[in-house]
């Protein structure tokens, strides 16, 4: 199937077709003054006419004077929680009478019971790359994450070109955008990828096909008489222009040249002390990061002690308990925890998974209450390394 053009009505038909196929469609919606993932039944659920302003430690929505549906940058969360919830029960134990009972019944919890497969609408390029990274981290391992595998299996992904990057964005530096699947970085396969265009030829979506399922869905729309004409050269040029303009508007850049070696060599740098004087070790950066995967487990018991649930929850390397071994924490200082986070994300990740752990979405910058900017910290380490 060739690249097609959908109108807004065509996009609504696409959403309807996904619902008809049994998908729960999740897309960007305005909630509590921010853009987050929510259920999408109609295009009116999408943030039409909303834009965002992001800078270190600041996020605001504002009204736009155009009808664009995807004219904003990275929302408060990536698609990560859809496949990797912040809290889930792994298994439960029912004991006959008390914990010493020999009649312990162990039940793995069927994670997808009652959950419809998810179609994610409007996954921007950075978050698409993040899905690819998470797939590597959680699936292509000695022991994969079964719950994640079940949720990811059958997910339908409709990606979108990021047309309005924020001041905090640097996907171009990371090779993950602004066009979905662009650049040398890791990219998750998408089923369909669209670029929203609004010019003298009208408001429309240039839709590219990434998989057989995507082609099949588009073919179904065409067969049903939905207006989905083949893209003309002018449409492609318009889409390319959106990409070029977004690339030019990228708010930040990160020099990735020799980054692993730089960070490994900088383990004792005074820059970490300087960051630590500002860092609150709150862990916000890890909670909004689309690739952070650390988790903790805890046993939750009912009042009788007869039912025990093993819960897995997101954890953060900024937490003091995170590195606790008998006798104390391995990383007692904020300095060492920030170093761990940044070094893991930008350097050790390469050794572990053959890629960077950063997609350049800028969320860790936006949502840091102390406005710490990792691109600035890397630059400081580079300057300091150059002086040494």
């Amino acid at each position, binding site marked *: 199937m060739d690249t097609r053009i959908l109108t807004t009505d065509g996009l609504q038909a696409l959403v309807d077709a996904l619902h008809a196929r049994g998908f729960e469609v999740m897309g960007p919606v305005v909630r509590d003054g921010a853009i987050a993932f929510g259920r999408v039944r109609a295009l009116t659920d999408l943030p039409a006419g909303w834009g965002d302003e992001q800078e270190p430690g600041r996020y605001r929505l504002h009204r736009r004077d155009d009808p664009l549906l995807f004219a904003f940058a990275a929302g408060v969360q990536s698609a990560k929680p859809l496949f990797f919830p912040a809290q889930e029960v792994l298994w439960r134990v029912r004991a006959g009478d008390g914990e010493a009972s020999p009649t312990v019944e162990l039940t793995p919890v069927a994670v997808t019971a009652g959950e419809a497969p998810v179609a994610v609408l409007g996954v921007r390029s950075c978050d698409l790359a993040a899905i690819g990274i998470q797939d590597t981290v959680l699936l292509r391992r000695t022991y994969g994450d079964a719950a994640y595998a079940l949720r990811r299996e059958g997910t339908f992904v409709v990606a979108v070109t990021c047309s309005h990057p924020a001041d905090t964005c640097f996907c171009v530096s990371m090779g993950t955008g602004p066009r979905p699947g662009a650049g040398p970085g890791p990219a998750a396969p998408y089923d369909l990828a669209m670029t929203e265009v609004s010019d003298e030829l009208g408001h429309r979506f240039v839709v590219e096909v990434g998989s057989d399922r995507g082609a099949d869905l588009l073919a179904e729309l065409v067969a049903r008489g939905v207006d989905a004409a083949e893209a003309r050269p002018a449409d492609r040029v318009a889409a390319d222009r959106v990409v070029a303009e977004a690339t030019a508007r990228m708010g930040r850049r990160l020099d990735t040249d020799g980054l692993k070696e730089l960070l490994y060599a900088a383990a004792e740098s005074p820059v970490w002390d300087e960051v630590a004087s500002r860092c609150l070790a709150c862990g916000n950066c890890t909670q909004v990061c689309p690739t952070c995967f650390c988790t903790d487990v805890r046993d939750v018991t009912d009042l009788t002690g007869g039912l025990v649930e093993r819960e897995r929850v997101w954890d953060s390397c900024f937490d003091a308990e995170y590195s606790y071994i*008998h006798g104390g924490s391995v990383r007692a200082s904020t300095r060492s925890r920030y170093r761990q986070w940044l070094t893991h994300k930008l350097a050790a990740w390469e050794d572990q998974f053959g890629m960077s752990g950063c997609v350049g979405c800028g969320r860790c910058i936006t949502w840091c209450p102390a406005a710490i900017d990792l691109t600035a910290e890397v630059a400081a380490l580079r300057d300091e390394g150059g002086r040494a």
Partner: protein
Amino acid sequence: MVRMTIEQYLPHHPFLAGLDEDALALLARCATLVHFAPGEYLFREGEPADAFYVLRTGRVALETRLGTGSQVLDTADADDPGDGVVGWSWLVPPYRWTFDARAVSETSAVSFDGVCLRARCEEDPVLGYALMRRVVGVMSTRLHSARVRLLDLYGGRP
């Protein structure tokens, strides 16, 4: 064991290895052979530190008396590499032993007279320096051991 004179034995002990013949001959003039049965004291806390022991065989425990009995602080073994010696108070004023030293097993040693050793070192600073370097080596090993044991690593510190 083949009987050796003190002068013949001294170069074989790792503590003295590397000293030249003249130095060893000087030192031998301060030395006597001594033997201790298990439980026998080499010296007691507070007594004049008039000797330095180079262990040939056996094990010696350094102890201190607590209100509730004795506590062993350290041991020296004849086969401790580069060590196997007991006592440095002969070198440091006021030349009094700070701990008890007791033979744990059958122990034989070369005992050097402290006053004699000090006199040789004063007369011959080259010999004095050579000896001092060896004693400092022993002190460094023991201090390292004491410091690391202060960490109480097996008590649970990561």
